């Protein structure tokens, strides 16, 4: 260790093996990554990186807002898009930060788990020579035998890990006994549980992201039903990367009704929907079960959840073609005003076969309806508005078109608006604009009659599947428990030295010295130590005296007590 310069010059630093030299930068990088300072910086980066996720519109939450933002900021928008600022929580940089943070975390706690396991097996450390030099100490003379004293102390220190030693190399007196006591092992355990749980939580979320799916389906609330056999059964379907749609939990849903309670000011009070469902083996058995969906009360079946996510109105129109054939349709219109449920949408009718001689003629006589629906109509002149979200006095204000409604184009058509290009090209021609109450109809110049029959409620159901969310909850809760334990448990060490005072065996006086050390949470330890010392020394079998303990040889001046 203390090699002289000459010696060192003659024997140079032992050369690292090639493997060692290659390994060194990795080892150093690993040490750097797992250091507390790095963890701290990564935590900061994580917090800062999440800020744009709160302030900039996110695709995962609202893609229309992102499109709006891109339209409003044509110069910076695309650059922000390239930097994945609209998908912060899936972006490469956010992922990089949390992956590094978790690697750092695992690298930090893995050795600590080993150390903790060793510490659990180890005995409390031997008493220091001079207990009076500890931050808190006490000494007293008692009348009981050293053995009795030690026994009483061990009894009183239940819950502490204790070990009693006699004599020993550091002893001032061969007859002395020392009790080393330590408690607070749970603190590190809680700490480890907290951090391991975070890893588990991340794993559960990752597995959930890969294997989960959610699909939305709109159903008219008059007995309309569907079965979730494939993604195609849903109106929209979002799934994790390893979901191929072949193994969806089979479920059939039928919506019997929907009720919305409103207060007089139009504020919603509660939404509920009575449904019937078949789940898993029910389908073969042909069993239908009843359930009621409410806001905050999803249906849970077979590990899946069914949510009542939205509702609206689906108007019904009937078209009576010139030859007397009728076609009726009921389709959901989108609520455009959330307070009044003024809704907008379209409806397209293909003339029935036989009305027109050939398919070309038939295509030119399709009927399209586009307009507004008000559940409680409020007319100002001919302008339709809605006064209340519940259906009290429904009416529609619609434009009626005739021509090619786009049904045969092969191009997907929006269910809420007409293809403007068809109108611009003159292929779809507006015939009239009317306001209709239920039962009222209008007649076009060729005798086609269009009748508004009324409206029914529709509901938007969401089926969600996440096999890992239970684990996420378990890990979140164990993280919390671990956190509370690691923040509340205090690590304490107490040593007690018991020495016979007199050399002759007739008098029984024993000197007891106590010293205590707080390994964490210094604050309050002074009082705690005093209470513990009182409890230990005031046991009746010990026989505490008022006598001052003689100063031990080599004992320094007691240190001033620290502030609590």
């Amino acid at each position: 260790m203390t090699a002289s310069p000459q010696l060192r010059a003659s024997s140079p630093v032992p050369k690292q093996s090639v493997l060692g030299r290659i390994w060194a930068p990795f080892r150093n990088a690993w040490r750097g990554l797992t250091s507390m300072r790095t963890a701290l910086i990564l935590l900061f980066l994580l917090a800062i990186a999440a800020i744009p996720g709160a302030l900039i519109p996110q695709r995962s939450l609202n893609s229309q807002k992102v499109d709006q933002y891109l339209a409003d900021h044509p110069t910076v928008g695309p650059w922000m898009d390239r930097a994945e600022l609209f998908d912060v929580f899936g972006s490469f940089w956010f992922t990089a930060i949390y992956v590094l943070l978790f690697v750092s975390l695992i690298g930090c706690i893995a050795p600590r788990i080993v150390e903790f396991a060793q510490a659990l097996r180890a005995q409390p450390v031997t008493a220091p020579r001079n207990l009076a030099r500890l931050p808190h100490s006490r000494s007293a003379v008692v009348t009981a035998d050293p053995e009795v004293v030690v026994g009483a102390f061990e009894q009183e220190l239940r819950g502490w890990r204790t070990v009693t030693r006699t004599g020993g190399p550091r002893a001032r007196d061969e007859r002395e006994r020392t009790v080393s006591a330590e408690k607070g092992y749970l603190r590190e355990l809680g700490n480890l549980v907290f951090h391991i749980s975070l890893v588990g939580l991340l794993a559960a979320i990752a597995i959930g992201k890969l294997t989960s799916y959610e699909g939305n389906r709109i159903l008219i609330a008059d007995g309309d039903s569907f079965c979730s056999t494939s993604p195609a059964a849903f109106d929209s379907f979002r799934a994790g990367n390893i979901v191929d749609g072949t193994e969806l939990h089979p479920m059939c849903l039928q919506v019997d009704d929907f009720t919305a309670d409103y207060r007089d000011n139009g504020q919603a009070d509660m939404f509920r929907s009575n449904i019937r469902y078949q789940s898993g083996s029910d389908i073969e058995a042909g069993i239908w079960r009843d359930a009621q969906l409410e806001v905050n009360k999803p249906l849970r079946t077979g590990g899946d959840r069914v949510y009542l996510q939205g509702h609206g109105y689906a108007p019904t129109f009937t078209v009576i073609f010139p030859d007397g054939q009728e076609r009726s349709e009921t389709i959901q219109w989108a609520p455009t005003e959330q307070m009044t449920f003024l809704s907008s949408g379209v409806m397209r009718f293909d003339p029935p076969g036989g009305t027109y001689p050939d398919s070309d003629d038939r295509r030119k006589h399709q009927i399209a309806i586009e307009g507004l629906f008000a559940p409680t109509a409020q007319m100002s002149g001919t302008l339709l508005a809605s006064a209340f979200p519940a259906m009290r006095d429904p009416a529609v204000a619609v434009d009626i078109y005739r021509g090619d409604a786009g049904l045969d184009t092969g191009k997907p058509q929006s269910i809420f608006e007409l293809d403007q290009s068809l109108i611009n090209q003159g292929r779809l021609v507006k015939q009239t604009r009317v306001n209709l109450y239920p039962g009222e109809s209008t007649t076009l110049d060729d005798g086609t009659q269009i009748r508004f029959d009324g409206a029914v409620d529709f509901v938007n159901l969401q089926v969600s599947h996440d096999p890992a969310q239970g684990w996420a909850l378990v890990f979140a809760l164990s993280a919390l428990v671990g956190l509370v334990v690691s923040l509340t448990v205090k690590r304490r060490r107490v040593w007690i030295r018991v020495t016979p005072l007199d050399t002759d065996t007739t008098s029984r006086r024993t000197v007891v010295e106590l010293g205590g050390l707080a390994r964490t949470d210094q604050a309050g330890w002074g009082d705690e130590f005093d209470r513990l010392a009182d409890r230990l020394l005031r046991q009746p079998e010990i026989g505490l005296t008022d006598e001052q303990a003689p100063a031990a040889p080599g004992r320094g001046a007691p240190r001033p007590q620290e502030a609590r």
Partner: protein
Amino acid sequence: MNTDANESLLRYSDWAFRSGFAVLAFAFVLLIIEYAASRAKSPAVQRNSVLVTAGGSGDAAGPATPGRSTRPERTLGERFGNMGRSVLFVATAALLVSIVLRGFATHRFPLGNMYEFVAMACAAALVSGLAVLNRPAYRSLWVFLLVPVLILEFLAGTVLYVSGGPVVPALKSFWLPIHVTIVSIGSGILMVAGAASVAYLLRMAVGDRDTRLGRTLARLPDAQTLDRIAYRTTIVAFPLFGAGIVLGAIWAEAAWGRFWGWDPKETVSFITWVVYAAYLHARATSGWQSTRAAWINVAGFVAMVTNLFIINFMVSGLHSYAGLN
């Protein structure tokens, strides 16, 4: 259905809130007077008083020997301070009464909008302040704590105020009282931690200088005490806030179909929690323990206040229940 709010109870609740605010402002004035009137002790005296405090029951002006005669006369400033403390109890009680009355008036748990949420967080800050800053030696810290509380109460009573009424269906849940109460209590306690950290930073920056500002700040508890107050309140609030987030996730799973979706409020609460996690790590990292840790705590305070209600003004999200957006 006639379950609308009871108007007269609602009026009493508003009165209690307003008078509570006025009383709190009065307490603030009294505490400022005490603060301004108390003379900073010279460094030597202060060192002695630290030693005395350590041994005794914490009364800095406590006599060295028992006996009534040695107790010094209370100064005018101290009297104002004692008065301020009593008035603080009144203000806290008034705020709590206002919250309880609102609950009775609206026949629901009184945490259905931003006004009620901020009022609850302020009440939590006041109650935890009364619990943590009870010693006369800590009283000067109240001046720092009351600034954010008064501002928040003022905003709650003006900008955020809505008359009591029933809540929207999404808020009709078993989890509402649990989730929102825990989050607001956690936020309230974190306000105490933030006030202590700000005071600590000021004290560390200028507290030793013999300038007017330095002498003013020297009247605060010593830096070590401020640091300890910040730490002890944070370790209570951090798990509480974490529990609030977890409970929110449990509710979100039942209400919105997923337990976590990076809604703006979820995101900012995540940020807040991570910042406080960084604070606790900083306390255990050499070189980061004192001033830097306090800065992190202040950053957490900013994130917490942002999460409390500023985020509702900045962006609309699923937590927009206040009728603000």
